[in-house]
């Protein structure tokens, strides 16, 4: 279970999210905006009777807000009892990795630094492991 990762693309780069975080992947459209909320909050979306708070993941990296595409993929995660939808460019794969993720060996550029925690290698590919809790509340990165 620990070795299962969801591979998604954020701001053109492929990242890995540990599968224990992930509840499901859904397509979203038509979110309710939240005026005056933090810029990386994309809005609210009703997933059946639950309300998801949508996170514009690429904002952490580009610093620019991106409009929600109709049918965009959101990775549903639960953090602290609340459900969030992490908006990603696309979800490409779920992989099983034998090796443990390695700690970061160098400081990441701003943005990535906020959300990345480790590096994962699978055959020829290398992914950055990201922490959903930090995507939701980047202040955590500074506390860690």
């Amino acid at each position, binding site marked *: 279970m620990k070795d299962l990762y969801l591979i998604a693309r954020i701001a053109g780069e492929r990242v890995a999210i540990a599968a224990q975080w992930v509840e499901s992947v859904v397509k979203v459209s*038509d979110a*309710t*905006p*939240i*005026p*005056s*909320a*933090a810029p990386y*909050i994309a809005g*609210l*979306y*009703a997933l*059946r*009777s*639950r*309300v998801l*708070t949508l996170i514009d993941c690429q904002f952490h990296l580009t610093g620019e807000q991106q409009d929600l595409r109709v049918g965009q993929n959101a990775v549903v995660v639960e953090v*602290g009892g*609340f459900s*969030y939808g992490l908006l990603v460019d696309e979800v490409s794969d779920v992989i099983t990795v034998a090796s443990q993720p390695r700690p970061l060996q160098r400081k990441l550029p701003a943005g990535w630094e906020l959300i990345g925690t480790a590096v994962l290698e699978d055959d020829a590919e290398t992914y950055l492991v990201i922490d959903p809790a930090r995507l*939701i*509340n980047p202040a955590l990165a500074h506390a860690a």
Partner: protein
Amino acid sequence: MDDLLQEFIAETRETLDSLASELVRWEANPGDKQRLDAIFRFFHTIKGSCGFLNLPRFERLSHAAEDVLSALRDGTREPSPALVDGILAIIDRIAELIAVMEAGVPLEDGSDADLIKALSEDQLAVHEVDESHLSDLEITTAADEPATASTIMRSIRVPLDLIDHLMNGVSDMVLARNEVARCLRESDIDPALEAAFHRLSGCIADMRDSIGQTRMQRIERIFSPLPRLVRDLAHELGKKVDLSTSGHNVELDREMLEIIRDPLTHIIRNSVDHGIEPPEDRRAAGKPDAGRLSVSGYQAGNQILIEIVDDGRGIDIDRLVEKAVSARIRTRAEAQMLSDRAKLELIFAPGISTASSVTAISGRGVGMDVVRANIERVGGSIDIDNRPGKGLKIVLRVPLTLTIIPCLTLSAGGQQFAMPRSSIREILFQNNQQVRIEQAGGTRIAYIRGKSLPFVDLEDILGLAADEDAPVKRTIVTINASSDLNYALGVEAVLDHEELVVRPGAPVIMADGLYAGTTLPDNGRPMLLLDPVGMAKRAQISGTGQETVQAETSECAQQGQESGLLFRDRKGRLRAILLGLVERVEDVPADHFAKSCGHFHMRVEDGTRPVHGLNSLPEEDMVKILHLFDGHARLVHAVADVVDIVALPNEFEATPDKIGIAGVMFLGDELVEIVDGHWVFSAMLGDRKTETPSSRPLCCLVGSGDGWARNMLAPLLRSSGYRVVMADSADEAEALDADIYLAMDGEELAGLADLPVVRLGSSGKNGTNGGVDRYDRDGILDALRDGLARRQA
């Protein structure tokens, strides 16, 4: 093993609260063997389980308590307050240990020798328990247990997570059902399928109700620790207090229960500490030594009321005002201007305490302001009924559940938001003549009927751009965010009134302070619930205390104009009534209305009120009504909707022909009928209340042995403004000294020769004895009037 431990912790916790109150009750009545047995059994059970779970501290503590209790049972020791204190201390220690264990920290093997020693200190006999004696007891209690267990309601423990999960599941089911229903409506369907769907639909509704029930808990949970609390406080303060609680069976949402726990405790502390006097003061005031404190809970509609009543000294208003002045909450001049009610409200001002001395019990800086804020946060309210010298009654009202809040939905910047209805006072159109918005120092102020309020547009607070497609005519909502925080909010439109299921939003949303939660209306698009206090903060509006009143110089007053409430009556006609007559507007459940004798009545707390404006019993669930009060009498006017408040012109076109309408005016291009307030009151109450009964003439019916007089004539006369008495014969009638007499056909009238008498003939025999035809209503009334006039002349 872990499971066993968890169960032990949960069970012990649950019993602890009720146990303490049992003990206190037992102290009041030491002869109650059953209570003592129950207490003994508790310690015994703990002791048994901890031996098994290897918890030596628990074992030692419960053992000590058990020893003392068994000595009490045998009568070898007498109960004393010190002893009860000792046992309570052990209960406390057990509770502490349980809390430590619950947190997952291993227990230190500390010593509780201090507590155990306290129990034995005042004991005369040697404190050694005969082992064989103890084992006897174990056998007897063990034998008792199955008997008690069988009477207990069967229940199981379920984690809250699971219940919440179920609740969500059912909500999903309801949404799915709605979608299926929509699909079914759009296609031609087989009746069999439709019937099956209906059955399914009913099952889902039932299920939702029962799942909702699981969230409910009995109010007992917060009542049961009270006897202990009150006892300890009273002891400490050297007072005597009799506590009675009622309404243990009232159920409310468990989250709500947690929210009212602290306010309730605080009010009770206050009451014992500041309200109830020491015994000597009470004697001096002619009250019994022991103060009475009663706490009762009951359900009224979808609200839970909790009443806390004491017979202490009440709130000393003058001292409260002094305190407010010295704490600089109000200047002396301001304080003098306040009404008594407003003075009493000062108790809710931050930083105030009426106790002459700050005590360890209630003078801890947490005031009634916090109590009120907590209650209001969940959409509740708090009322105080102060009778100085006699006592104080505090009523807490909270909604039945935390999650369903009555809201108005409104739009701003093209987006919809919800706002708790409890904080909205008034809705006005911006083009209303009564509203003026002025710019001052970069901020805006709304002048509404002479009162000024800070004004801000919702779009500005939220940083939204105004929606260009929105109608030009905006709406102003005046908001009472907290007791002294009022402002006016400009919005695009107020859309609807809905009861919404509100859930807390994610921390990243709530952190902002602008939002109180999220909700999912039927349209399936999430909506944000605005927090009126947070918005005021964002707009940098701080409570100045009162609305500033422009002393009587408002435009209306200058021109001698009166304000009127504009409403649509139940036939859809636009009408206005003098605002001064309207006490308040309310939505009332339709089952409060009843019809009798062609008149409609509405049930109110203290009786019934006549209802104007209804033609038939209402079919909708809720009816909007105006409470009218003319200074003497009250009645209710049912309306379809309240529209606005407008200035009434000084002169308007009178409409003498139209009953109940004083005149008409034009508002824009719509015709508005102005209600004749006097007519409404006179029509509804007529001769019943507007004049004193003794001013009505007394009419004596002579010969009323005849059932016709009693059953037919008397009601006619009463409804025509007479008081009616009955007499069987002329002699009897004379003694009654009536203003006028009405004699039946054929009565002997010798004794009444000098008195005004009207005689009735039988039907169609007008001429026979000079009497009036008994079916000639007008004739009878005319004759009576003439008779009276002759008498007065």
